[in-house]
């Protein structure tokens, strides 16, 4: 099968839809298996994030019929389309406001935004902070590979200082976001960060996020061996995972101020940093409707 990426790059792949049972994945039940193989490169961390997510959906008892996954554009932006739920592949950066409208329209839905760091924090960064501020009752899963994967590895607002990308050929002179701090500062009521190496903790955190009432933000630190790994001499995908194993520091109770990961080759501090309760947007909308709609009152306004 030939796959053509948004940026025009093509790829040849073997079809594995009819794989024998022993080769079938335990998360097939939640996938549109007729769309496989997926487009992700060997060693990419996005697939692992999807495995953790599907298992979390199961553990949280969420029915696929009631699950909406909204993605923006990017390698991670392809996640929604592989999941056998209500899938929305929108435009670059707009997954969060699309999801906000969707969930406000029907708060019974479980709405998840699954997208990349560039999509959610560069072009869509304004929406991220405003959805956090409103405490919209949705879950945002942000795969942070420190780079724009889909378009061939350009730098972005998460690229670590000094890192080489195709648009920072001399090393990134900019400073990146600490996404946990950004989300917390904007008002997110659940904030965590894990790497794809730590599948168990990542899954548990996703369960927490999915069952959290309010805006939950899970940052998934994930290798893009093809662009970020290769250019920054992080080795092959396994080397990058080895790096995660040796340099991940679990700091569950740390303040978001202390968990910056903006230094190339530095420690990756992970944990659940925020978990608090606040009224959600949807609760406030419902509260206002209740306040305004006593039985006796007419529905009319006034003219002009």
């Amino acid at each position, binding site marked *: 099968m030939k796959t053509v990426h948004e940026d025009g790059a093509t790829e040849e792949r073997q079809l594995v839809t009819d794989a024998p049972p022993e080769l079938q994945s335990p998360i097939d039940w939640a996938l549109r298996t007729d769309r496989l193989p997926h487009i992700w490169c060997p060693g990419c961390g996005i697939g692992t994030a999807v495995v953790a997510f599907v298992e979390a959906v199961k553990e949280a008892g969420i029915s696929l019929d009631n699950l909406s996954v909204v993605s923006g554009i990017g390698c991670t932006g392809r996640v929604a389309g592989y999941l*056998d739920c209500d899938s929305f592949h929108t435009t670059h950066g707009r997954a969060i*406001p699309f999801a906000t*409208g*969707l969930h406000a*329209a029907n708060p019974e839905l479980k709405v998840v935004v699954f997208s990349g760091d560039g999509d959610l924090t560069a072009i869509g960064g304004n929406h991220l902070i405003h959805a956090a501020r409103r405490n919209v009752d949705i879950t945002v899963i942000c795969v942070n590979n420190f780079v724009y994967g889909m378009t061939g590895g350009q730098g972005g607002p998460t690229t670590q200082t000094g890192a080489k990308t195709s648009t920072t050929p001399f090393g990134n002179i900019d400073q990146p976001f600490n996404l946990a701090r950004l989300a917390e500062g904007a008002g997110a009521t659940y904030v965590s960060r894990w790497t794809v190496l730590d599948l168990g903790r990542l899954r548990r955190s996703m369960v927490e996020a999915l069952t959290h009432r309010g805006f939950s933000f899970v940052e998934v630190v994930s290798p893009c061996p093809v662009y970020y790994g290769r250019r920054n001499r992080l080795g092959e995908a396994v080397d990058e995972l080895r790096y995660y194993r040796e340099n991940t520091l679990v700091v569950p109770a740390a303040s978001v101020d202390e968990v910056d990961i903006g230094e190339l080759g530095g420690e990756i501090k992970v944990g659940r940093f925020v978990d608090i309760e606040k009224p959600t947007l949807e609760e406030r909308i419902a509260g206002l409707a209740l306040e305004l709609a006593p039985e006796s009152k007419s529905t009319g*306004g006034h003219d002009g």
Partner: protein
Amino acid sequence: MGKSPALSGVHFMLGDVAVAEGAIAAGCTFFGGYPITPSTEVAERMALRLPQIGGIFMQMEDELASIAAVLGASWGGRKSMTATSGPGFSLMMESIGLAVMTETPAVICNVQRGAPSTGLPTLVAQGDMMQARWGSHGHYQIIALVPWSPQECFDLTVRAFNLAERYRTPVLIMADAEVAHLTERVVIPPAGEIEIWPRKRPTLPPGPGALDLDETLVAPMPAAGEGYRLMVESLTHDDRGYPDTTATTHRQLVQRLNDKIYRDRFALYDQVERVIDDAEVVVVSYGISARISARAVEIARARGIKAGLLRLRTVWPFPEERIGELSKRLAGFVVAELNLGQVSREVERVAVDGCSVATCGNAGGDILHPKEILEAIIAVDQGLAPSRSSKLARV
């Protein structure tokens, strides 16, 4: 649900408010917007009304978010709209294309003001007509309606929602600052007399065939959460919504998206003609400019000039057959609009050789004067305006 939220009765109402009331009468229960003159009163009215009728008003962080939220809410099962003006309309363009591609019903009202850029925030123009037609990338059909009064702000907003649902497409209301800020008599009919076209819903339960296309070229549209496992895809996709980025699928999809609207254009055309039967010069106009054109035509008639008025209430799709047919027997057209020639290009495109087309316009800031339009009518009538062929010959 209980009683209809339509404000049936006779009102003295602002154009912008009438847009909001038209939306509510049509069943709109979601508004996402960002303040911008001269459309802000639509949002303010929705902020007041929607929470009282079980609807949702959301002031978003910008127009990018507004249109995205509107599309999300539409898939959440609600009739949804936004209102803006030029700068915000520009920001919405990418997601208007998303609505076209994902066949998401939505209504977008653009109250036009002087432009480019921040231009004249409080003053009128009609300079976004071509942006309405072609502003998002790619080749697509769009439906755009233009009201000339607060009454039509109401009526055409109801129609915009009906068309958005029938064709599963974004529909634009291309108002202007004058009409939107006029306060006039608006009659809102009893709820039962307002024609509402519902969303085309699947008749089969989730499973094979449930979301198949039929001869209308429009597939049924379930909401999220109903078990259909929707695949709403901005990439080129097949009929299931699965991405298939090949030239063949792309051409099929884009052709169908165009056809579902263009094929039905005769049902979409909506123009009001005055004293056209014996006319030798016809003024083509819309919105506030058409009101002034009506006066100019009256004066021309009083002076014995056989002038007529063709007022567009649907500008896109453009009634090319009617204009083409008229062009065969007319001395010419005057196109009166608050820009330097946008819809006039369409008239030029479809008029036969020898029929002259004169643009009577300005870049915005103030409405036309009947005298200017009258002068253009006289020029065309006396053969002083260039004919289409001679004009082409000049370039």
